[in-house]
């Protein structure tokens, strides 16, 4: 896949970072505002996809990148599962128990384990959407060859 013109590349350079930051904002405020892990993860993946679309995939090691995203995806979801299982070991021993201290409602660090779930679900969603995108790119390159 070839890159686009210099105008597109420069604009993407300016925008991609902002999109990425916005994704992080959505994820870490998941327990306070609308959105959360899933929505923020999609935005994170969007910033990467924007860069790949603008610059082309020729300079990427697609297969290696795809292996990396798959690894991150599985690690993140495994952490979510471990957090859920930690409820079985701590507190009143219930699956998915929110055992951590809840803090003051409305503050950034509050709601116990929910921000952690959001963060790891965000990584999981970003990585999996990126791997779907990379898999499609790899598939297309294989066809055109």
């Amino acid at each position, binding site marked *: 896949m070839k890159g686009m013109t210099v105008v597109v590349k420069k604009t993407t350079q300016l925008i991609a970072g902002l999109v990425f930051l916005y994704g992080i904002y959505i994820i870490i405020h998941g327990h306070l505002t609308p959105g959360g892990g899933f929505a923020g993860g999609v935005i994170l993946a969007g910033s990467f996809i924007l860069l790949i679309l603008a610059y082309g995939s020729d300079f990427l090691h697609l297969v290696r990148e795809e292996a990396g995203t798959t690894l991150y995806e599985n690690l993140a979801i495994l952490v979510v599962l471990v957090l859920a299982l930690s409820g079985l070991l701590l507190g009143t021993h219930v699956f*998915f128990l929110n055992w951590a201290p809840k803090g003051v409602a409305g503050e950034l660090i509050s709601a116990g384990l929910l921000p952690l779930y959001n963060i790891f679900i965000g990584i999981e969603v970003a990585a999996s959407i990126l791997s779907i995108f990379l898999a499609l790119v790899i598939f297309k390159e294989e066809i055109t060859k």
Partner: protein
Amino acid sequence: MMNPLIPLFVAVPLAGAFLIMILGRFIKHFDRVAASLVLLFLVIISLHAIVSSGGSTSVYKVGGWEAVNKIPIGIYMVMDGFSVIVLCIVNLIGLLSVIYSISYISRYTSENFFYSLFCLMVAGMNGVVLSGDLFNIFVFLEISAISSYALVAFGVEKDELEATFKYQVLGGVASFLILFGIGFIYWKTKTLNIADVRTVFSTGYDRNYYLLVQILLLSGFGLKAAIIPFHAWLPDAHSSAPSPISAMLSGVLIKAIGIYVIIRLFFNMFAISEGMAVLITTLGTLSMFIGVFLAVGQWDIKRLLAYHSISQMGYVVLSAGIGMILISREIRYEVAALAIAGSIFHLINHAAFKSLLFLNAGAIEYSTGTRDLKEMGGLSKTMPVTSGTSFVASLSISGIPPFNGFFSKLIIIIAAVMARFYLLAALAALVSIITLASFLKFQRYAFYNQDPDRKKTKGKEVPFPMLFSMIILGMICLLLSLLVIPGIREMILTPATDILMDPSRYTSQITGT
């Protein structure tokens, strides 16, 4: 203190799936070892559950969210007499399929993906079976359905991709109908908990609205269960998948995410109406009758077996339908109980013999490289174990004593006669005879027929893991006959029948009123 084993039925296979994807890259053979251990663990805890529960219902409130004003707000997982049986067959067939896959799948690349998807599929089915609320049923159903789409296409050949595409389109339609139905229920009742939905509906409902919801859910889950007007995807999908997956799909998937949910919802959530009961019985009879006629003419072994799945599922639905008709007329509850017991018994038996038959078909394909009955013959000499086990399974499915299929079909036919549905009883017997004919053809062409002028048959016996699974399943086919013995029947089948017959008990145990 809630039973901590209940969430493990979902959490352990999920963890297995993700660990396989991570560590499977670095450690050789980690995938098959991990998958076998996960399934072994699940089999142990499900057997423990069936022995220790003694038919009682246990409720698990995920996250520890207690009911507020007696309205359940959290996610409830419910393990009762019926779900524990389905859990047992899901995990047992899953374990044997994984052991079988150790040899069978080593011919393919990307084994990691296979075992990972397999664990995901099992997690989804366990989740559907244990779930006590509608939306979780939908979520877990999608987990297992999507992983089964990928597994059907595992060979990535033209046929497999076509089959999986068809399966995905129809599966998507089914999921859409189910979600639509769940949405309608949520709109009216403001709750998703199965027991609570029943309570809310019992205070009064609009008849047409209720009927619409019932039809949506019946057609959605009917598509997943491949009852006859909705069966188009099944023969392709089940015959193109790798054989251990065919065994899982035909043996447990259509039951766990299709028949199980239909029975659960129509007995425990909706008030049984005679119209729906007659409709379900008709669908069951059609599946049973048309399925077997579609099967007789097949020459591809796996297609033949797939069509027989439709027909045998017809027995299950028919028998459950007879039970529903009797309950809706409020007469002869003991016959209704017999019909439902027959239906559950046949569901268990079908899981055993149909997965065995698919594993046999896989063994034949593994060793001779063909699925066409006309190209086989004389395999009983070269593959004695496959031949023997498939003989057991063929007799079971055709209903020959002392194998399990005989007893469940007998119970179904007796129940139909006692309920005075003589035509249905006669049809069930007739279909059983046609099934026998069809399996005699399978036996003869695959194992015994030998053209004198044809060159020596190729093929040799398959490796040990495959033999092991087939022999165990053959023994299970015989052992399941024991379920008719009164003491064992009361321990396993009666709790399941009770919970289905008495929806108010199901409701009261969940809402705690």
